[in-house]
Structure formats: structure tokens, C-alpha cells
């Protein structure tokens, strides 16, 4: 079965999409990622779509769903590296993916994830990274 690799990186999961997505692939990713979040207790998910050139409404919606599901599983999702053409397409399709955090590249996405986890730990008083 064709699959997109999900890499564990400390407290985070890193998904780098390097192929063109189609409906089945993105649904597989949804299954795979949700089970991985649950298994690894990841606190953040980084989805890198810098190689993605074509999106349709289904893929856009599913990416939104993945972020919402991760939220329910207590993980923050950051979408990084969206290309200008893809951003324009999504906006023209009326999907501005409200509720998903975005960043320009993996570096900035990682910084954003750390920041949001720090904020979360400030609120609860429990640090996620230290035992």
C-alpha cells in the first residue's frame, strides 16, 4: 500500500509530503497519522507540503480534518511550506483552513510548535518535555 512516511522527532511527528497527493493516499495519511499520534503521545504535528503542487477541494478539506483530529487527540498541527499557487487555489475554493496554524518553512514551524507547547505548559504548569 502506498504510504507517506510519518517520522517521530522528539515530541513531534513530522510528515513530509514529497509526492502528489490523491484521494486514497491522503485518507491513508489520515488513518496512519491519527494512530501514530495516539501511540506516540505526540504533542505536535508538522506537515510539510512544500513539494505539493496541486490541491483540490477534497485534499484541502482532508488536511483540515487531519488538523482537527490531531487537535482532539491533543496535538497541535502546523502546516508548513505551502506554495503561492496552492494558497491561491485554496482561497479561491473558499477554504482558508481556519484553525490550522501555518508557517513558512520547517524551521519556523518547529519554532511555532515549541512556542505553543510552552504556552500550553505555562497554563497547566506541567512541562511536556521534562519528565
Amino acid at each position, binding site marked *: 500500500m502506498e504510504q507517506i512516511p510519518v517520522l517521530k522527532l522528539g515530541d513531534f511527528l513530522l510528515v513530509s509530503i514529497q509526492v502528489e497527493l490523491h484521494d486514497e493516499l491522503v485518507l491513508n495519511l489520515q488513518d496512519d497519522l491519527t494512530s501514530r499520534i495516539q501511540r506516540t503521545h505526540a504533542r505536535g504535528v508538522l506537515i510539510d507540503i512544500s513539494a505539493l503542487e496541486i490541491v483540490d477541494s477534497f485534499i484541502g478539506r482532508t488536511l483540515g480534518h487531519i488538523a482537527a483530529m490531531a487537535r482532539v487527540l491533543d496535538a497541535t498541527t502546523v502546516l508548513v511550506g505551502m506554495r503561492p499557487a496552492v494558497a491561491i487555489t485554496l482561497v479561491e475554493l473558499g477554504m482558508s483552513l481556519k484553525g490550522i496554524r501555518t508557517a*513558512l518553512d520547517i524551521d519556523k514551524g518547529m519554532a511555532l510548535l515549541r512556542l505553543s507547547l510552552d504556552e500550553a505548559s505555562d497554563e497547566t504548569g506541567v512541562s511536556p518535555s521534562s519528565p
Partner: protein
Amino acid sequence: MLKRAGLADILIKDEAEILANWVAEQLSGGAKGGTLSEQEIKESSRAFLSVFATAVKHDYTEQITSAQWDGVRAHLAKLSRERVVQGFSSEDTATFIFSLKKPLFDSLRKSGDDADRLNEEFWKLTQVLDKLGLVTVSEYQKSRQQIIERQQQELLDLTTPVVKLWDSIVALPLIGTLDSERTQVVMESLLDSIVENEAAIAIIDITGVPTVDTLVAQHLLKTVAAARLMGAECIISGIRPQIAQTIVHLGVDLGDVVTKATLAEALKIALRRVGLTVSKLGSVKAGE
């Protein structure tokens, strides 16, 4: 033999006379709109006559699309382009060819008195010159069209410059009315420059936008949404009081987009967002 080579012969024999008559014709007729001196007219007329003579050297047909006329057509195309640049009207440009009729007919008439042959020659020559006149006009219009298109594109490019204000801060000062086509260009150039400059903040300054209606507001919101998808935050600045009133009256919801009155305010907040402060020289020294 004589009959076949009639035009070519007189073009060689009476060249000087034809040229002089033609130049006189041009000067008296349509030259008022032009800025060419007599010398320049003479030059261009002589150049055309020699090309024309080459084309009709061995008999000729009135099918000016044939290879025989390639040189003449190319010459006319070049001439038309030059005349466009020099500011001639299409009428003046076409007159260049049409004024050649009289001198050529005069010379032809002098070359013999065989009425049938002359008639035939006249008719053929008229057809050719008319068609060449049309070529000039169509080339003239083509060049004009090219100039208009180029200027349109330049206008589009010129009015949407994206400037880098600081590391990871870009600004887009919008000037003029926003329509769908321009918004597309604006959006693309802004998003491209976000990638290029790794910008975290993009400031859209609408000081130069005369009116904001629902459509323009919608375009702006789309641009903001697209920039957000790429991971950059947008600030809209330069909102004048009238525009603020219009936006509220129209019931446009700018949502959670940050808006500022001036570009300076927007820059200030952008610098703070990326973790920078601006301070006076003196205060830095005092702090040391």
C-alpha cells in the same frame, strides 16, 4: 519583351524623375502631420523605390503575398514601425504608398501610346499599390497594438511593487483601483515575495486605493487568507476615514485582520511581532 518589362524599365530609366515627383507629391499632400525633413523623405522614398524595383525586375503579379514581394513587405513593415514611433497617423503612413501612384502613372504614360497595354499596366500597378497600402496600414496598427499591450503590462507591473522593509517584513503599497485582474497579480507577487524574503509579516498599504467597495474588500481578504495559509501574517494599513466609514456601512467584516491607520504604525507593530524594537541613539548609549 518590351511590354513585359515595362514597369521595371521605366523604374530604372526615370528613377530620378519619379523620385522627385514622388517627394514633391508627399510634401504637398499628406506631409503636414509628419515631422520628417525633405531629405529624410527622399531617403526613405529612394530606399523603397530600389526595393520595389528589385521586386518587379522580371515581370510581376498582383499577388503580393507571394515570395517575390517578401522584400517589399518586410521593408514596409519596418517603415510602418518607424512611423509609429515617430508619431505619424495611419493616414500619413498610407499616403506614403498611395502618393507613388501619380508619378509612376505619369512615367508609364510617357513610355508609350499603346492604349491596351497601358490600361493593363495601370490596372496591375493600381492593384499592387493598393494592396501595399493596406499592408502599411495593417502593419501600422499591429505596431500600435503591440505598444498598447506592452504599456498595459508595464502599468500592471509598475503599480504592484513589493518592497522589503526589514528582515522578514515586506510591504505592498497599492495604488489605483483594484479589479479582479490586478488583484490576481497583486496576490501572486505578494505571495512570491513572501517566499523569496522568508517574510513573517506582510503589510498591505491601501493609502493609494481611491475607493473600497465590497469587491475590493473581498479581494483584500482573499489575499490575507492566502498569505496566512503560507504562514505569514498580514496587516492592512493606510485606511482613510472615508474608507473606514465605507467599510462599516457596507457591512464588510474584516475579521481578525490587523488594521492600522498608517504604514508607520503597521511597521511598528510588525517590528514588535518579529521581536525587534526601534530606539533613539541616545537611549542606547545611556543603557550601555
